[in-house]
């Protein structure tokens, strides 16, 4: 982000930017940056809190009064803790109906989807929008396409405009969005970290992601391997699955 500031400012456009990883901004030295201590993915801090977001925007705008730069200022306010900030104290109300007998990954995931569907529909209704749908496929087809990627025969893309590997990434995000929107429709505030810990710790869908990662790493094509290394299981969840794949040191 800081590099874009350099390019735009060199062309005569004054900029002010939010900084998320302070050491990166210290190296790049953009003209005006406001470092914020918020969770990655939430540069304005708190969803649904207009007053909080406005304070961040005002702080960002205030950097434009500086007579000279580079300016790197720390935003002084952290996000308020939720009543259920402690993950161990937070109990996810979506308690899946566990099977008595062993079932396949496919059966588990389709069972979870059936149980989550009313919640995801409720979330869509309440919010008036949904971020599910980037792949343009219904949820069961999203799951089946991803499951097919873990089989011997890689699936063809059902979309003429996207390759199977492009669709892999979009369907992966759609599956997560479906689960996350569904669980957010439940009572009780939840941080992004809590939603992530629920998804990666409690669902069969997470097992599918781990299987997808293994399948991608076994592929011949470097771009598919890269998806496996970097784009399926978040780094902060690797320890849960015993992954320590520091691919960035192999480049």
């Amino acid at each position, binding site marked *: 982000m800081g*590099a874009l500031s350099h390019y735009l400012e060199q062309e*005569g456009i004054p900029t002010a930017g939010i900084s998320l990883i*302070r*050491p990166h901004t210290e190296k790049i030295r953009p003209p005006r940056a406001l470092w914020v201590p918020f969770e990655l993915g*939430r540069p304005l801090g708190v969803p649904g809190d207009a007053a909080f977001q406005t304070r961040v925007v*005002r702080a960002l*705008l205030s950097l434009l009064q500086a007579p000279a730069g580079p300016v790197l200022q720390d935003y002084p306010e952290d996000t308020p803790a939720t009543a259920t900030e402690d993950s161990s104290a937070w109990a996810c109300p979506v308690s899946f109906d566990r099977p008595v007998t062993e079932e396949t990954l496919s059966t588990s995931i389709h069972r979870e989807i059936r149980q989550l569907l009313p919640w995801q529909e409720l979330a869509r209704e309440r919010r008036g929008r949904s*971020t599910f749908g980037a792949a343009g496929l219904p949820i069961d087809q999203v799951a089946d396409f991803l499951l097919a990627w873990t089989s011997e025969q890689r699936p063809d893309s059902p979309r003429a405009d996207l390759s199977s590997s492009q669709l892999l990434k979009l369907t992966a995000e759609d599956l997560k*969005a479906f689960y*996350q929107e569904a669980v957010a429709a439940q009572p009780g505030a939840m941080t992004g970290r809590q939603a992530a810990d629920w998804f990666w710790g409690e669902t069969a869908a997470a097992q599918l992601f781990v299987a997808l990662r293994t399948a991608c790493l076994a592929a011949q094509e470097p771009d598919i391997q890269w998806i496996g290394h970097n784009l399926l299981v978040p780094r902060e969840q690797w320890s849960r699955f015993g992954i320590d794949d520091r691919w960035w040191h192999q480049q």
Partner: protein
Amino acid sequence: MARLEDFDELGRDYLLSMPMPVFETTPWAKPPPVANARIAIISTAGLQRRGDRPFSVDSSDFRLIPGDTQAADLAMSHISTNFDRTGFQEDANVVLPLDRLRELAEQGEIGSVASMHYSFMGATHPGKMESTARHLAGLLKQDAIDIALLVPV
């Protein structure tokens, strides 16, 4: 949470190993008073209008976000899996604060809000975005933009 000490050792190792572009100097363009400024947002959250082309690995281009875009018409196709998306799912303004800018314009704290905003996909190495960014600067001037607010994800 985006404090370095909030990441585990592996996450810190990744973040501190990322290759950064090197700039010998910092450019400085003098802005007008914010109260008179026309302001655009440049996001790197991989945002697109629903139905527009999704971003893919190494995308160095941008997508157009018209100023009257409603949250329901916004999608995110950033390739990274390493950031929270539940905030955006709940409220698009936590990533793209268009409503906040409109409110500040109505209150007279800023001059006006741009008719067009733009999103890159921040997982691409910034050096690959240089020519597109310089092209974007020309578009911003055409829209009489005085200030660009850069918002990563």
